[in-house]
């Protein structure tokens, strides 16, 4: 089992007015308002650490603001931001997590969890949900974790998920099936 932290972020009330007021540029404020929750959530659940996710969100948007003139519109802005986020988070994981965390390989995980994935996912309280999701994601191979997190964004097509993860949309569909089953089995084993 991996030894990721399962610390949960502190929930804070955020309204959009302070966001707009905080930025000098309305364009930057609009980008941040539209995409920050998805970017932060991807970083949070991919890295499993609220502090690192906060830093990553800051770094990703700063990088995006710097390179905004390079954005050619060949993908959606959301996809472009996801690409920056994935690269950033993977670099972080390679430098720190790679030395400290050992994840279970796919086959071992599959053997251990197959057959326990048919039930719906149940939790008693919303508070518990985040912890259980993080634990289940931490136990998955990185590729599955990323696929699930990207597919959870309704705005992304399978083609876009494939483009972000360097594979075809058919490959995404195939791997997603296994990722869903593995996630559900691990999630339900936590009861």
């Amino acid at each position: 089992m991996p030894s990721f932290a399962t610390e949960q972020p502190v929930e804070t009330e955020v309204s959009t007015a302070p966001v707009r007021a905080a930025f000098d540029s309305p364009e930057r404020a609009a980008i941040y308002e539209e995409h920050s929750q998805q970017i932060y959530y991807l970083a949070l659940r991919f890295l499993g650490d609220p502090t690192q996710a906060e830093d990553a969100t800051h770094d990703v948007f700063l990088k995006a603001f710097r390179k905004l003139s390079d954005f050619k519109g060949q993908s959606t802005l959301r996809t472009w931001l996801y690409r920056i986020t994935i690269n950033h988070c993977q670099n972080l994981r390679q430098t720190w997590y790679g030395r400290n965390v050992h994840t279970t390989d796919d086959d071992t995980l599959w053997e251990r969890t197959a057959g326990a994935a048919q039930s719906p996912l149940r939790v008693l309280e919303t508070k518990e949900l985040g912890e259980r999701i993080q634990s289940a994601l931490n136990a998955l191979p990185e590729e599955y974790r990323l696929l699930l997190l990207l597919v959870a964004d309704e705005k992304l097509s399978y083609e876009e998920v494939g483009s972000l993860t360097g594979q075809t949309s058919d490959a995404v569909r195939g791997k997603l099936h296994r990722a869903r089953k593995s996630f559900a089995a691990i999630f339900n084993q936590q009861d």
Partner: protein
Amino acid sequence: MNRQHQKLTRKEQEEQQTASHQQSGQHQTALEFKTPEEALRHDREQTSVPTAVVERLNRSAGDLPKPRRSWWRFWEQE
């Protein structure tokens, strides 16, 4: 005797009702998701971006030149 029996019965009914309310209360807070994506979406909606990110970002981006064009905004709205 008979009245005592009625009292007991009423008490039992009240206990059953209380237990039933407690159970239904649990059901109200219980969450069920058919797919991992559903659970992740719900979790994402419950997760707020820390306000400190905006403040840090604005400080860090303060030195950057402001975007000259906002064509991407129109493109995004298509």
